[in-house]
């Protein structure tokens, strides 16, 4: 009877609930953003069949080699558009980086920078 009682009471035991927390955060990357560009301004010279001689003469007077790299008006347009596309891509990538930093870095991390 005693054995039976002990056997029955042990069978239906209530188990202790265990909750595990094993979250381990990765170390933060926190790289500095690249330094913004500081560019030099270019000087464009327009040469036509009418002013070519005058342009080269002026270059010589200024002590500059009388040689020019040329673009047609169409190629100049393409160059301008290519630069605008590169600029847009740069802006998007830069802003994307900002968004990631804002999302993943805490306020404290941002203040530390």
């Amino acid at each position, binding site marked *: *009877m*005693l054995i039976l009682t002990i056997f029955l009471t042990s069978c239906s035991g209530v188990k202790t609930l265990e909750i595990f927390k094993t979250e381990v955060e990765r170390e933060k990357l926190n790289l500095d953003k690249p330094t913004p560009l500081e560019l030099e301004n270019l000087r*464009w*010279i327009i040469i036509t069949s009418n002013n070519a001689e005058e342009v080269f003469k002026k270059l010589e007077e200024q002590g500059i080699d009388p040689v020019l790299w040329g673009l047609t008006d169409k190629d100049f347009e393409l160059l301008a558009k290519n630069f605008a596309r590169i*600029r847009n891509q740069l802006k998007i990538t830069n802003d994307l980086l900002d968004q990631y930093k804002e999302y993943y870095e805490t306020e404290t991390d941002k203040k530390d920078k």
Partner: protein
Amino acid sequence: MFGSIRIFMIGIMATAVIGGGVYVMKLRSDNAILKANAIKMESAITEQQELITKQKEDFQEILAANKKMNQLVSVLKKDLEDLDKRFNKKNRDVGKLAIAKTKSIERITNGASALATRCIEIASGSPLTEKEKNATKKSEINSECPSIANPNYIPY
């Protein structure tokens, strides 16, 4: 004979009393565990609710970031379209214009080139100047990339 029966009955009674005692102790122990479980469950529910709230906040933040990026792509696309218009508006031929008004087109080209250079600096993360920030008129803006250079300019 009666003696044996008596001992047997006492044995049964003792077993019943001990068994009852053990059972009550087991019940008390189970009760304590259940109480502890209930506390843990309540705590887990609170933590889950906090997690859900945080997830909702994160989701809102992701939506806002996506919206911001889409807006940026859209305004940059407009800048590119405006550049195309400057070259080709009303069948404009920049080449012919440059032949006819060489000096002024050269001046305009150099001005635009300097502005475009500044646009690249801004795109790479250069901070805006006060002048750029405060520009609200067409004459004050960087016409090559007003969307990123002049945040307070509203096209009119």
